[in-house]
């Protein structure tokens, strides 16, 4: 990476292209996503927004038919990591780059174990530490007061909005530097969506957020920077 790279960029794409089999999903994308800001990407379904997110935590390497060209890098703890390297170990990287999916995806286990799951994966064994980190993560997503009495209930019994906040809490428990959100409110009703939006505004102060969304209206309320994706091409929109 060159020294000319601005220090505020968290994720940088330069002439980046992505192919899946024979389909070109992303074409020659160049963009910077700044640190501790909410960057939003809007655009129609199938335009490649989710694919772009899966580049940012190297989840694309799980797809055997995917191929990338150009440059894509992320800066974690002050150090740049190449996102195009299929062979590089991705576990550490994904612990610092959380991801929230469109449909809430709690695992079929208790609420507590869902949030503690990434800690288990990372090999944290100290029960006291696990307990306090789960609690603070649930507090951060404003879920603690609602569910502190029933932490050992199956997480799939929560409401949709609660499930999505649980999934955000689960991503936050490892204290990621970046959080990727793939249409996190599209499966929720209006009130639950408003709850998630409020949460995102609070998270922005110490976490870089990349939000994919269908709704320009939502994005205008939240984002510091907006891109529009269309047919695999990314272009910047002015923010008001």
């Amino acid at each position, binding site marked *: 990476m060159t020294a000319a790279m601005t220090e505020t960029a968290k994720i940088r794409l330069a002439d980046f292209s992505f192919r899946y089999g024979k389909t070109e999903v992303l074409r020659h994308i160049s963009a910077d996503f700044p640190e501790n800001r909410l960057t939003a990407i809007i655009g129609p379904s199938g335009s490649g927004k989710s694919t772009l997110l899966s580049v940012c935590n190297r989840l694309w390497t799980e797809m055997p038919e995917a191929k990338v060209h150009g440059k894509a890098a992320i800066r974690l703890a002050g150090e740049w990591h190449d996102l195009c390297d299929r062979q590089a170990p991705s576990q550490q990287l994904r612990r610092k780059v959380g991801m929230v999916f469109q449909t809430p995806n709690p695992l079929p286990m208790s609420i507590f174990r869902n949030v503690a799951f990434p800690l288990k*994966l990372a090999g944290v064994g100290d029960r006291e530490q696990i307990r306090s980190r789960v609690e603070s993560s649930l507090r951060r997503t404003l879920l603690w007061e609602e569910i502190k009495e029933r932490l050992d209930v199956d997480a799939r019994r929560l409401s949709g909005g609660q499930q999505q906040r649980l999934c955000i809490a689960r991503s936050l428990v490892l204290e990621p530097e970046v959080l990727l959100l793939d249409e996190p409110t599209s499966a929720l009703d209006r009130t639950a969506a408003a709850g998630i939006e409020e949460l995102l505004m609070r998270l922005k102060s110490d976490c870089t957020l990349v939000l994919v969304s269908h709704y320009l209206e939502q994005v205008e309320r939240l984002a510091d920077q907006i891109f529009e994706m269309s047919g695999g091409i990314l272009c910047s929109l002015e923010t008001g």
Partner: protein
Amino acid sequence: MNRRGELILIAFSWCCTLLLTAAVGTLLLFLLRRGLSAFDMALFFGDTAPLDALLLRRPVFDGLFPALFGTVVLVFLAVACAIPVGLAAGIYLAEYAAPAPKRLLNLLFDVLAGIPSIVIGLAGFALAIVLHRTFSGRIGPCLLLSALSLAFLVLPYLIRSTQNTLEAVDPVTRRTALALGASKLQNILYVLLPNRMADLTGGIILAVGRCAEDTAVIMLTGVVASAGIPDSLLRQYEALPFYIYYISSQYSGPDELERGFAAALVLLFLCTALFLLAFLAQRRLKERLFYR
């Protein structure tokens, strides 16, 4: 499809289900009617005291106990050998194998699944002869050899059911743990397998049933009509399916035939108990993995 065609199809489906249920019911009733009257302690233990027989203090000469014992040990041994290999091979095929070796192995395991059990019995028998020669008569057809042959027989089912089960996991669940920083192995062990425990148990139950009922394999690899309780895995043994086969082909009177029917009932109950055990173990294991 028009409304009438749909109705006909529904009626046909109902009839088929009914026919099958009726067939199973008739079979059960027939067995119960013919075999139930022979059900008593003497059926299992002959004239040996039940407690002495259960504690293996005195041998049973004229009862089903040794055959029951033999079948239970056989099933547990065979399944215990087959499960680790079957699961591991299934996981390899579903998660790790590159396309080319995967195609080849799929074909090979299909061939393996198609081998008639008598042929696997013959292979076991051939192995027994080799062992007999190598160890100057100390190892021949025996319980261990039967169990290994049976394990080989059910291996393709286990591999295929594990593979299909893992490949059926939806992409969202598959990526959940990966996005949270799980390694491939962690994803398999903590998410994919536990999520699919019920399907995996289905495969194992099929394997258990197959091990319990197969006669061709054990006939050639170590079962005999009268051996008592074997004192080691390298001895010959008795088993329920072989007892049933033996009685049905050379019973000497109505009493003995009745005992044959009773033995069939015992085998049926044993299988039910084993299925139940597998099911409960699955539930228990899932709870321990997920909710503690």
